[in-house]
């Protein structure tokens, strides 16, 4: 995740920007010296040099910002690879909750941008850039260079004293603000309840009191939080003032202490113009401090969404033959609500239809088998082994109510179930699933282009794509989650017929409301 060895990192360009400040100061000093001599040719040359140096700095800053963004994109890509799979196979639940989970994951990854694009490169540059400026200033006047460096000592001390207090205060401020924002979010979220009970006025007043109270408390905190930026500001001003006074008195020869250097005007001006550059990296860094706070909070949240994978994952037991399934007193515990206990026994090569009222937890049983629903008590055994130790994902057949689509052709979408399947096998599965009329009706046949929603396909056709997948997969274990729900009667009967024929000899666990589909199962079990 680190870009430490990346050659095009933004910090290099920020440091180059510090280097470019040197010719700019030199050109200005040379120009003033030429004006002093009345040397118009050199003056003009110096002015051109000055503008060229400014142009160079402008370019370097653009590249630095762009490189920073590029580095941030790389980091975000890495995080996306880690987090998105967790979100994509998150426990299926309420659509609204899914939306929140997705938004949380996507937004937090975006929050990392400023930290990696700006703060990190600026922090790396802030180590080297002041030293470069001080060294360049020392070429003009080594005492002035030393003055700049010496101001670093009280600066560092001040930052250590005020900085930690300020950082604590800043953290508390962020805390208070996020609590306020949390309160606001909570009340907006509960709007249906609030307006439903006509509690607008009371809740509104409460929110007003709370926001003003937090704002007042935040202000007290800010007095400390701004200290560290005041210290940077103070030393930036002080370094200019000290260098100016030293150079002026040196030029006048009025210094109250002996110095082993006598300055010329151009040397003195060169040093003076460089002096504000010395604290510039620190000021830039302070301006990006908010990015750091946001980025660190985001990392914490993302670690929670997608914990680092444990390396000790034992190899999973493969399933080759139709397995026997056994649920022993399984309770599915969603934290708030628990369903179960469920017990069932499904011998190898047989099929079982689960029926019962909506909301009783039939689908959750299938999800639990896949590890998508949290099991609070009991266990699920596949051929006598714990379901979690068996290589189910990627090796079973699934047909449900929603079918996943990716942009590509119809054939691509069917082939997702078995990427090594040949064209003939894909077409056979499609025809067997009853997609023949679709292939014939549209000019493209199996090359029919689809988007990520499968737009243009009817509800029945979408289900049939799912059926074609399960046929193509040819897996020993099938899980069916109401594959015919909401379909018209004819399609439902047809699909039930296809599944009846193809499921023979496999272990099939199905959830259904439909009597036709349940009829194809060896056994039926009603949950109540």
């Amino acid at each position, binding site marked *: 995740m680190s870009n430490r060895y990346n050659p095009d990192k933004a910090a290099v360009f920020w440091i180059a920007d510090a280097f470019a400040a040197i010719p700019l100061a030199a050109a200005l000093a040379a120009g*003033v010296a030429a004006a002093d001599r009345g040397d118009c040719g050199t003056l003009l040359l110096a002015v051109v040099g000055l503008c060229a140096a400014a142009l160079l700095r402008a370019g370097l800053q653009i590249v630095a910002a762009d490189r920073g963004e590029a580095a941030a994109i790389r980091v975000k890509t890495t995080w996306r690879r880690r987090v*998105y799979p967790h979100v994509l196979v998150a426990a299926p639940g309420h659509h609204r909750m899914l939306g929140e989970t997705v938004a949380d994951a996507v937004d937090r990854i975006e929050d990392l941008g400023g930290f990696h694009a700006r703060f990190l490169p600026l922090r790396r540059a802030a180590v080297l850039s002041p030293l470069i400026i001080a060294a360049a200033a020392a070429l003009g006047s080594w005492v002035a260079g030393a003055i700049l460096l010496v101001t670093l000592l009280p600066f560092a001390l001040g930052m250590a004293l005020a900085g930690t207090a300020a950082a604590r205060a800043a953290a508390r401020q962020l805390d208070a603000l996020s609590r306020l924002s949390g309160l606001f979010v909570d009340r907006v979220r509960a709007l249906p309840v609030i307006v439903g009970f006509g509690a607008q006025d009371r809740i509104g007043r409460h929110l007003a009191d709370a*926001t003003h109270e937090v704002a007042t408390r935040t202000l007290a905190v800010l007095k400390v939080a701004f200290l560290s930026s005041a210290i940077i500001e103070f030393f930036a001003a002080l370094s*200019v003032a000290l260098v100016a*006074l030293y*150079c*002026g008195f040196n030029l006048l020869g009025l210094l109250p202490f002996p110095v082993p250097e006598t300055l010329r005007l151009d040397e003195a001006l060169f040093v003076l113009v460089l002096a504000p550059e010395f604290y510039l990296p620190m000021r830039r860094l302070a301006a990006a401090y908010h990015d750091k706070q946001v980025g660190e909070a985001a990392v914490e949240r993302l670690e929670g969404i997608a914990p680092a994978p444990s390396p000790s994952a034992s190899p999973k037991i493969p399933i080759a033959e139709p397995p026997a399934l056994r649920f022993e007193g399984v309770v599915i515990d969603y934290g708030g609500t628990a369903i179960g206990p469920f017990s069932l026994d499904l011998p190898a090569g047989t099929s079982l239809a689960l029926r019962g009222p909506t909301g009783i937890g039939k689908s959750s049983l299938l999800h639990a088998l896949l590890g998508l629903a949290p099991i609070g008590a009991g266990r699920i055994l596949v051929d006598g082994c714990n379901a979690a130790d068996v290589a189910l994902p990627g090796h079973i057949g699934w047909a449900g109510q929603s079918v996943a689509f990716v*942009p590509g052709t119809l054939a691509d979408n069917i082939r997702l179930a078995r990427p090594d399947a040949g064209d003939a096998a894909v077409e056979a599965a499609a025809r067997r699933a009853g997609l023949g009329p679709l292939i014939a009706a549209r000019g493209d046949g199996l090359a029919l282009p689809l988007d*990520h929603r499968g737009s243009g396909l009817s509800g029945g056709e979408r289900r049939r794509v799912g059926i074609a997948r399960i046929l193509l997969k040819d897996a020993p274990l099938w899980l069916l989650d109401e594959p015919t729900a909401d379909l018209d009667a004819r399609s439902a009967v047809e699909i039930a017929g296809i599944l009846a024929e193809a499921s023979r000899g496999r272990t099939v666990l199905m959830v259904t409301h439909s009597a036709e589909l349940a009829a194809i199962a060896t056994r039926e079990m009603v949950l109540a």
Partner: protein
Amino acid sequence: MSRAHLDRLLADAAALERRHFRIAGALAAAATIAAVLLLGLSGWFITGAALAGLGGVLAVQTFNYLLPSAAIRLLAIVRTTARYGERLYGHRAALMTLATLRTRLFDRILTVGDVRAVSAGDAVTRLVQDIGALEDSLIRKPALPAALAGGAIGIVLAWLASPWASLALLVLLVALSLWAHLATPRLLAIAAADMAAALARLKASMVDHASASPEILAYGLTPAIEQALEVEKTALDQARRRFARGEAIIDAGLVLGGGLAMGAVLAISQAALPFTVLAVLSAAGAIESLSGYVRGVSRGALVTAALARLEAMTGRHPVPVDATISIVQTIVFDRNGASVRLEAGERLGIAGRSGSGKTTLLEMLAGVRPAPADCGIRLDDRNLATLPPEAMRAAFALSPQDAQLLSGTVRDNLRVARPGLTDEQLWAALDVGCLATEVRAMPEGLDQWVGDGGARLSGGQRKRLSLARAILAGRPWLLLDEPSEGLDMVTEARLCRRLATWLHETGTGLMVVSHRPAFLALAKHRLDLEGNNSALAEAALS
């Protein structure tokens, strides 16, 4: 609400803090002037000293170094303290304005027709981000006086070099401001819009994909899906990069402008050398003082987008709630030939498969979701769609399917129902909801913190707390959406019994959506929403 309204809302909120904004602006101006003068005066001092040093002992003795050196030290202190004060007053004004604005926005949001859309998770997240963008723009308010002061002092000091130098600096300052204003829409506005659109598309695609998560897991489709998301991810990253680049290019204009200003003043100057140096360095400082303002202009692209979204989100102007709210005596459902008529105090059980519009029906009655004209529901012989939501809210108390609780205490959650509730009333309602024993057993009783959105309670407890709250509202009709979800049979039976007693004693009508026979048995009338072609089901899909 129109954009003008929103702007006025913002202006009104800011007006309360006008004094602090003015102080912050004055301090910002002072800090900028001090910064420009500090560098300029230092240059003048050094150059003057150098010339005096060359001029011999007499020149040195006549050179007044006390005043400038004292001024340099003073300016360093003024610059620091003024900057500190500016930040403090600027943040105070911005925070207080925002506190007011948040409250007023909340009031406006309360008046939207479909509060459910606003209260959805991603909408709330965007709301918070948009308010953050406004905060950013408020904190940048003192940047304008700072830029004006810096520009003015720069132009005055450049006059010391030559009137032409002043003119050149003025031209540069105006050109850079124009540059920021002209480049922002071209370089940033499109990128900002692309960014928001790509982000929304990415989230929508992920939600679409993730709703088929068992299939993704069963076939190991994660790599294929991630590949499919690549388009949106790339679009987002590229838009963000274009935005960052655009912002850097606009900022770079200032760096280049600073160089040009110094070069121009140096080349044009006719004055004595110390004044030339003073003018050159002041010109650079004047250009630098524009930076806060320019950043504000470029961030304006985000603020405009935020304001537009807030405008779309907030509702019409607050209307006074109609004081003469009718008590609904009769309710008629008339759909697909099947019709049910309820008189005050009667009970209706609603059944139907998931997706058939049961929840939608209750939400329309409760006035939290707008009803379509063909909803087939009449209250006291008036079409539901023609009634103001306030009228429905006064007649119905809803305990929704996902029991929404406030982050607060048990008492906070119950007292939302109605003003002026006593503890006895709260306990009585908890008793009907079969929750009193459990709340008594909690360490803090009624003051028990229920966690964010009630996270510290079990699903069944949340449900019953929400039911107790609906009972407390004292409305003539009680609407219950799946009240027994997450309850065991024994509790369910007890809850049914107590609820029946309470309904009977208070003469409250009931509409209950449930899959379980126990609750449906409470009701004399029955409405079956089976079938996909009803108006209600279509309303649910739209």
